[in-house]
């Protein structure tokens, strides 16, 4: 409040103070965002521009001919015989993993917030613990969890008719398996974020609702959830952008079979891109698929941001 009063204040003569203040203010802002900008340029925008150049490049005897390919890499990538199934697989995975992830995280966060206390704090930490296991390690651990011979969930797996790990690890089960892996390693972090968001909901409002006869369930659905919906949108954007890049999970799960064939080498678009580049030597088509993933991620984010007035609400709330 104080800040905005200072900025819009009309009492101080603008022409005297503004030029140096503006410069200093912006300099500070840029200094603060510089590390991020440098990293984003080096590892985000830079590689994307390089991929754009490579996507028009052809190779002769292993040497790049820049802009020598025209659009042929684009037609090659899209008409590749594995492209359709990779898109189909990722769509299947997104349809399962995103709703499960968001619904699960919201439910856990709301449940935790409904009954606060030491027990809840303990649970919150407990949910967070699996997140400490880094990506590939979590997948290796998951392989043991999915093995009916070793898993603590063996009775459940056997109830589904699975006797060995090779019964479980089938290509048709992969979307669910990868969703579970992602859920258990990622939920804790998101629950902490959502819980934090819920702590920000004003106490007066919650108390008023309770006095009006709101049940805990109604409180959660009609009061708390609308107050944190921007976080839901935020989670949607990040999980969409993250999940569409599916790569490590199918790759490591492949190792369950001696023939590396649970998911196959071209299960997701990213795997196809990797395979095209490093197994078939087609860097151009690989770059096209990477760019396509960037495009889909950006498009998804834009639709969600502008469809939900994400930033507008943010600014209104902040001021």
């Amino acid at each position, binding site marked *: 409040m104080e800040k*905005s009063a200072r*900025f*819009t204040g009309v009492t101080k003569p603008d022409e005297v103070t503004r030029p140096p203040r503006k410069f200093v203010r*912006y300099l500070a802002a*840029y200094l603060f965002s510089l590390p991020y*900008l440098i990293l984003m*340029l080096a590892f985000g*925008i*830079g590689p994307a*521009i*390089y991929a754009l*150049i490579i996507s028009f490049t052809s*190779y002769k*005897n*292993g*040497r*790049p001919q*820049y802009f020598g390919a025209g659009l042929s890499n684009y037609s090659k990538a899209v008409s*590749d*015989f594995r492209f359709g199934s990779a898109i189909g697989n990722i769509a299947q995975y997104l349809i399962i993993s995103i709703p499960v992830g968001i619904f699960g995280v919201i439910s856990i966060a709301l449940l935790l917030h409904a009954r606060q206390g030491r027990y809840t704090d303990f649970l919150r930490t407990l949910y967070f613990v699996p997140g400490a296991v880094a990506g590939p390690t979590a997948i290796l651990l998951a392989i043991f969890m999915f093995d009916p*011979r070793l898993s603590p969930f063996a009775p459940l797996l056997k109830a589904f008719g699975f006797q*060995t790990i*090779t*019964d479980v690890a*089938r*290509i048709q089960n992969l979307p669910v398996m990868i969703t579970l892996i992602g859920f258990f390693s990622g939920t804790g972090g998101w629950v902490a974020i959502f819980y934090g968001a819920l702590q920000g909901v004003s106490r007066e409002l919650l108390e008023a609702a309770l006095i009006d006869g709101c049940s805990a369930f109604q409180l959660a659905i009609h009061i708390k959830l609308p107050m944190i919906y921007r976080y839901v949108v935020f989670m949607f954007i990040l999980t969409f952008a993250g999940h569409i890049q599916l790569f490590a999970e199918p790759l490591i799960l492949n190792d369950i*079979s*001696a*023939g*590396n*064939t649970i998911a*196959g*080498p071209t299960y997701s678009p990213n795997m196809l891109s990797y395979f095209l*580049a*490093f*197994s*078939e*030597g087609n*860097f151009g088509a690989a770059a096209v698929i990477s760019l396509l993933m960037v495009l889909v991620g950006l498009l998804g984010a834009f639709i969600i941001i502008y469809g939900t007035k994400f930033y507008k609400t943010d600014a209104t709330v902040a001021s």
Partner: protein
Amino acid sequence: MKLLSVKPWRFHFLVLVSLCFGLVLAACGDNTPTAATGATTAAAGATTAAAGATTAAAGATTAAAGDPNATITVWVDDTRKPAITQFQQKFPDQASKIKIEVVGRGGFPGKVLLFNNTGKGWPDVVFAEPNLVAQVADTAHNYPLDLTPYVSADIKSKFAGLDDCIFDGKLFCLRNDLAQNVLWFNKKLMDQFGYTVPKTWEDYLALGLKVAQEHPGYVIGSVGDNQAAETFFGGSNCPLQRSLGNSQVLINTADPNCTRVAGMLDKLIAAKAVSKLGPFDPDFAKLGADNKILMLPAASWYGQYVFKATYYKANPTDGQLGVAEPPKWAADSKTYTAAHGGAAWTVFRNTKNPKLATDLILWLTTSNDYQATAPTYPAYIPAADAWHATIQNDKIYAFDPYPVLKTSASYLYPEWSPVRYDGLTSYAKIVNAGLKDGKTVASLMEPLQKDLVPLAQAQGYEVVTKSP
């Protein structure tokens, strides 16, 4: 508020745009010299190639050009690292010129593409399977050196399985070891049940059905992973991957040589004489520990590394493991066998020290100093004869397995050839997965064909279904 909300945006936008622009410029700036260097290197490469061509034309004896003092980088796995160290000890004057790097060779073809891109970094000598050599032999990778001028006809003739190293008439590698398929069997059980070891696949089928009747629970093979493609289909001269030069491949799963295998396997699978488990599945290992494996067609290294190290480890049973030549189809004039594994040494086309690189791989593959005690069956026949001592007196065998292994190595045939695409993964994806869904091998032959053909085409092969 208005002033602040409009102008800074434009300001931020301009800053970001100029940053991006700067980055592109920087990237281009970086690119130009690289491209130039690349061109120079390419030119240099061309010169070397030209020089190579001239030398080759001048005569095979003077093939070794380059700098005899240049350092070479050797890519090996952990198992073969001691071989290089041994060479260094044997030839101390060369020791400092060899740099050993232990790598996972699966990434070898991909790395070569990256090195081609950057114009530097190639290893000089690589330990890799012939199918990896096939991958780096295409025009995109353009990696291996034609070893023809460096290896005498006499030495070449003493190699078994060298066909896998010959691509369009060029010798791109020297075989290190062989993994020829043989028929492992449990001699004690066979004697006890009164069975004789089958000499033909027809006998193998008949015996399998008999075992299922008389001794249910005992198995005579496994179709659970992609090794089955090599043991059964490769053992029948089935054209799953018959390379017809660098640009053509014959794939025809409907060939009678393939359908006869599918028919046999379906009967044996239905009778449960052949297991749907893979040989490395823990449940299959349990069959081994329970002494339920009556026969197992598999690679030559199974004796030491699977039967001894896994199946018979828990209950050591001396003197029961026998080995027989792979069965032959009655209608065929000869026995065919494929391999599961077995690697080779390949050299970089533009290595600075071709003399040392080729001397090294010749020593590695042919010298008894290393091969006589090597971990796996040597491809060089005189070395294999010396290697014989390592298994001759092993108590696990019912009899000396070496003569059978040696004869079986001679059944490796050039029509089962390394190709640039991964046909085995395709086999596992279609056939192994299909079997688990309860389908028959015969019904999966057509889907396998459909999966293999575009895979081969993506690698630039023209696919034909008949021998030209």
